């Protein structure tokens, strides 16, 4: 998971909306709120993309509570069964739950930061075996058969977030390549 300047995924992950509270009056920026008022007042809540919220929060112009996708409710759901939590529902269909979480963690103080990162890491490691199973299974599966969407694998697949999707595609691809090699008849076709 790179924070490369040129990484499109990193840019997109920075675009998640974060709900912030202003700690001071800001004249002339009322349009951010979407209303007709000219100024932003102290204590007003505004949804901002993370890239903007980050800078404002680091300078203590705004504060924000931990957004709902990383709340305690989600945390206990992950503790109960990490594989059945639908991360894609939390951050939207094309969200990046891990990336965004890590970006938020960068802004937090030591203790909540540790807590958040631990939650992300634990969720990832607990979901990894299921992810690997699924990608290996899809690489070798017969796609001519109709797929049943009731199996646990398919449910898990619906709940994958951006990086997990990517990982799934990578695993599936290399699995398919390996299978193609095992199935190939190495040069038997040259026999005359």
């Amino acid at each position, binding site marked *: 998971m790179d924070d490369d300047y040129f990484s499109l995924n990193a840019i997109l992950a920075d675009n998640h909306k974060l709900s912030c509270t202003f700690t001071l009056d800001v004249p002339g920026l009322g349009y951010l709120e979407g209303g007709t008022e000219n100024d932003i007042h102290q204590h007003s809540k505004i949804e901002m993309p993370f890239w903007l919220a980050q800078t404002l929060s680091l300078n203590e112009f705004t504060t924000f509570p931990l957004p709902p996708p990383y709340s305690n409710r989600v945390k206990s759901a992950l503790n109960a069964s990490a594989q059945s939590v639908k991360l894609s529902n939390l951050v939207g269909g094309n969200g990046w739950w891990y990336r965004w979480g890590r970006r938020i963690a960068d802004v937090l103080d030591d203790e909540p930061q540790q807590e958040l990162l631990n939650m992300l890491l634990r969720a990832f*490691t607990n979901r990894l075996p299921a992810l690997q199973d699924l990608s290996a299974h899809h690489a070798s599966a017969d796609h001519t058969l109709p797929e049943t969407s009731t199996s646990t694998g398919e449910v898990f697949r619906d709940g994958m977030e951006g990086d997990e999707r990517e990982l799934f595609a990578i695993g599936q691809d*290399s699995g398919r*390549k390996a299978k193609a090699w095992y199935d190939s008849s190495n*040069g038997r076709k040259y026999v005359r």
Partner: protein
Amino acid sequence: MALPKSLQNGLTPDELTFLAEEDTIDIVPLFSMTRIRLLSGIYGPFQPPSAARVPLWLALSLKRKRKCRIVPPEWLNVDHIQALLKDEKENLEGFGMLPRRFIETSKVLLDVAADDLIQPSTLRSLLKDLREVRQAKVRLGLQSEGVMRGSYLQVTNLTPLELSELKPFLVKAMGMMQSLEPKTGEDEEEEEEDDRFDAGYEG
């Protein structure tokens, strides 16, 4: 990078097979010829019924033209692979030691020179079993202690071919784990040391 994404992760199975064909193997030629000088060395003389040692690609090429019989390597027989399979099943901790080009060599030999091997169909199914046992271990390994702490996956004795299948997935997964790792106190100490060094430098 100029390489297509599918090739950036390392060698493909086809490339590994190409490399495996540089290894030498014994053949019994069905023709007579004096020594021959190739780029990789001098081979021959070919004098049936005595055996000659040639690179695998040459052996396969001759075999396809029905000009030789390939002498299978000593590890490619039912007894030996059955023993390997048994060890693999009993040893739950790690992977069994295989010759480096085991999978590639056995596959091309089974494909091209099956009639020179003893019980090729049994061999085929044994090799498949062996592959499945090892893959199951990889799967278990992903749930192991080492991965849970985000530090390592035990892959000692996996052959390059098996790694090539696993590598792209693992590299990204490990990268993600590393970036999610909470920052420990050690990093901060290092930074402090750097600061002190900088200060000293200025003064």
